[in-house]
Every structure is written in structure tokens, then in C-alpha cells.
């Protein structure tokens, strides 16, 4: 078989495997006898929405800091310092600051975005430095093109491919971080639930079948996302 046929066969196999695993929650019921499937989907929507918002915010912040670092290098030093501090501890500190009885969701967005932007800023700054010293861009500077045109024609296309891959990886990290926080009881406030909340509930009930029916599809989704992102990279 030619390589593309191998690839198609692999993609089909992965899609079927993921679909089969995602079907697991439909085989079980929760504590109240309701099918687990719809609740799993709704929790997934919460997790993926939180991860998306955090990724977009962190991406915007990271690109802004990377651009700022061309004028003030200290901005990258702040990113470096942010990379040193354990992200989960900072996330715990921020989410723990939410006033009791209030919706924790905005705090979750903030906690994830605050810990994810330094990695994006570092990578974008590298790409930006390379693009700025590219002969085509230097020629554009010499020709006197204005800053907006240079960004549109040279810098943005140069950083876009890597940025897309980095955002994909950041999305997976945000998803995993959200699941971890929710598992520790710091996810979105009830009645909203995320995948981590479902896993914590299943574990506290001591129901192994329910626990694995919740976790296996989550693993399938995150592994597929990671492989897709790595391919893009």
C-alpha cells in the first residue's frame, strides 16, 4: 500500500476506536439511574469550552508579550519566571481565591490562562526574532513599508504555522489542567460539571466500571488530540 493508504487506514482505525470508546458511557447509568452518556457529553462541553477560552486568552497574551519583547526584553524575563513556578500550584492559588458560594468558572479561565501564556510567548518570540531577521522582511523595512503591512505580509505568515501547533498543544494542556483541578474539587461550581468532576464522583462512589467508562473516552479524546497536534507540528 502507498503511504497515504496506510495513513487513511490508520485514521479510520483511530476514528473507529475512539468512537467505540466514546460509546462506553452509554452502557452505564449514574447514581440516579440516568444514562451516563448525555451527562458525559455535557461535562465534556464544559471542559472543552473552558480549555478553548483559556487557550485563546493565553494565546492572545503570549503573542502580545512576544511582540512587546521586541521593544522591552524584560517581558520575556517575566515569561521565563512564569515557566519556573509549578502551574498547578498557581492554579490552585488563583481558584482558591474565589469567594465562597460564587461561580468559579471565570477564576478557572484566569488560572489556566495565567499559567499557559509563558510557553506560548517564548515560542512566538523565537519565531518572531527569526522572521524579523529574514532577508525578505529586512528588504521590506528598507523599502519603507509601514508596520501593519510588514506584519500582514511577513511576520504574521511566518509565525502562524508554529503558533497553530503551539495553540493545539496548549489546548491539550489546558484540558488536562482543567480535569485535574475539577478532580481536586476546584472545577466549575455545581450544578455544572466537567470530566474531572465526573471522575471524582465515580471514584468517591467506588464504582470501578463507572470510573473507567468516564475516564477511557477522556483518554481517547486527549490522545487523539495530542497525536493530531504532533502531526501538525
Amino acid at each position: 500500500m502507498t503511504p497515504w493508504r496506510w495513513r487513511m487506514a490508520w485514521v479510520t482505525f483511530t476514528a473507529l476506536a475512539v468512537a467505540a470508546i466514546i460509546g462506553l458511557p452509554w452502557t452505564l447509568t449514574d447514581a440516579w439511574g440516568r444514562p451516563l452518556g448525555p451527562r458525559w457529553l455535557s461535562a465534556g462541553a464544559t471542559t472543552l469550552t473552558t480549555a478553548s477560552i483559556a487557550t485563546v486568552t493565553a494565546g492572545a497574551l503570549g503573542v502580545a508579550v512576544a511582540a512587546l519583547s521586541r521593544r522591552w526584553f524584560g517581558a520575556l524575563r517575566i515569561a521565563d519566571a512564569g515557566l519556573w513556578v509549578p502551574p498547578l500550584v498557581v492554579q490552585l492559588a488563583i481558584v482558591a481565591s474565589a469567594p465562597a458560594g460564587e461561580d468559579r468558572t471565570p477564576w478557572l479561565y484566569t488560572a489556566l490562562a495565567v499559567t499557559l501564556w509563558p510557553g506560548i510567548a517564548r515560542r512566538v518570540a523565537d519565531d518572531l526574532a527569526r522572521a524579523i531577521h529574514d532577508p525578505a522582511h529586512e528588504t521590506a523595512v528598507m523599502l519603507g513599508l509601514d508596520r501593519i503591512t510588514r506584519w500582514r505580509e511577513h511576520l504574521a505568515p511566518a509565525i502562524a504555522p508554529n503558533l497553530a501547533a503551539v495553540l493545539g498543544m496548549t489546548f491539550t494542556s489546558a484540558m488536562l489542567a482543567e480535569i485535574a483541578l475539577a478532580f481536586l474539587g476546584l472545577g466549575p461550581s455545581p450544578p455544572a460539571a466537567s470530566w474531572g468532576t465526573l471522575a471524582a464522583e465515580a471514584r468517591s462512589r467506588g464504582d470501578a466500571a463507572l470510573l473507567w467508562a468516564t475516564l477511557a473516552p477522556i483518554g481517547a479524546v486527549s490522545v487523539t488530540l495530542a497525536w493530531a497536534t504532533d502531526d501538525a507540528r
Partner: protein
Amino acid sequence: MSLLRRLRDAAGGWLVALLVVAVAQTALPAVFSTDDTGARLGGCPVSETTLDVGLAWAGLGPNARSPIAGCATAASLVLPRLPWSALPFLIACGVALPGASALGLLGAWRSGGVVDRAVTATVIALAAIPGVAVALLIQAGVRAAGLPGLGAGTLDGRGWALSVIGPSLTLACGLLPGLTRLARAGWRDVLASAWWANARAEGRASLRLAVQFGATAAMHAPVQQLVWAAPRWIVGAAVVETVFGWPGVGTLLARHAAAGDAPVVAFGVTVAAAFAALLSVAVPATERA
């Protein structure tokens, strides 16, 4: 890089960590809090509650507790648990480093081949599976092997020595993907070096020779990565410690965070930042020596 610059960076890390907590403690409630009618207080400069929290942090106002007394309380809770958190991490390093070296060499030996792709796909999958799932899988595994799957209740006597196996293996699984990728890159450099080319030309190139002489060069970056990542894995292993009931800093921080006790968590951030700052000064100094 000069020592002065290292110190400046270290101080920067510490300050940023404090700044993050200070912002979370004082400014964010003003943005996200709602009043009695459910309306957002985002437009108001600072809500009364926020002001109280801010003043209490500064050691002022009616709800103030002395910052020194607060720090002492948090320190008495966090610091005794640091060795308990460091123990599984150190064991995990002992497991993950040889594992990463072996997997990296397997991948680099025939770079781009089937084995290389399989190793890469495996480590990507391992990195993408939620830590909760990995921890619970290993917990089920160690229980099936007749070992204790929970640490907190078995720390007396010989119990803790067996209880540490679960958290250590889970941490090793978390460390393995990053280390394997670095080890693979290191091994590729070693196998592409003039030294290895000479050995091949003389017919002496073998797996044994590569392991015997190339390992030091190949594993330099993974070891460095381990040192830098130490604060993240020692102070921030909350999920692993919670699943295994291990009495480390992570369990403590997660419990206090869930209870809304931010000062203890803030102290945890400070400890982690100070730890990272110390490493950023100590590691280059050790390397120069």
C-alpha cells in the same frame, strides 16, 4: 551568565509568583464578584469584601492576622511535608532516567523507522492521558500486585516503604515522555558524532559501546531538565498525592484550596518559587564547578 544576572532572574520569578497571588487575592474578586442582586461588581473599583481581604493580607483592618503569624502557620503546615513529597520524586527519577535513556536509544538507533515511530507515539499518548487516569490505573495495578494503593493510613512501620511505590511509578510515567524526547535527541547527536563514525569505520560500533561511552553525553539534557522540573513535581504533584492519599505538599495545598484557605496555598506558591529560584542559582554554579 553572571551570578548577578541569575540572582536578578531568580528574584524576578519570586516576585512574579507573589504578584500572581496578590492579584488573585485582591483585584480579581472585584472583577468577578457579584452583589446581593447578582449583578457583577466588575465596574466598582474594589468591593468591601475585597478590601477586607486585601487589608487582612497586609496585616491591617478588622480581620487582620499578622503576616508573620500567618506565614509561620502556613510554614508549619507546608515545610514538614516537603520531604514526603521529595521521596516519590527521587524514586521516580531513578526509574524514569534509565527508562527514558533506553527508549531514546531505541528511537535514535534507527531514526524514522517503525520502532522510532512507535516510541514517539507511545510517549505522546503517555503525555496526553490525564494524570488522574494514569494514577488510578497504577493504583489498580499496585493493588492487584498485593501492594498498598493508599499511603496515608500505612505510614507507620514498614507500610510507607511499600506505599511509596504507587506514587513513584505514577510520577515516573509523568516524567518519562519529556525525558524520552530529550534522550532521543541526545542519542541522535551521539550517533551522528565523529566519535561514533570512527568507531563504525573501525568496526567497533555496537550497542554496548554506545551505552558505555555515549550515555553521559546523551543524558546531559534530560538530567538538566529533571533538575529544573523538580519544584513542579515536588510541590505540584497534587493529583498523584490525592489519588494515593500520600501526605505530601500537593495533598495539603489541594485540601486547603478546596476549603478556600488561600494563604496556605499562597505560601505553597512562595515555597515553589523560592525552590525554583534557588535551583536557578545553584545549578549553573554547580555546572561551572
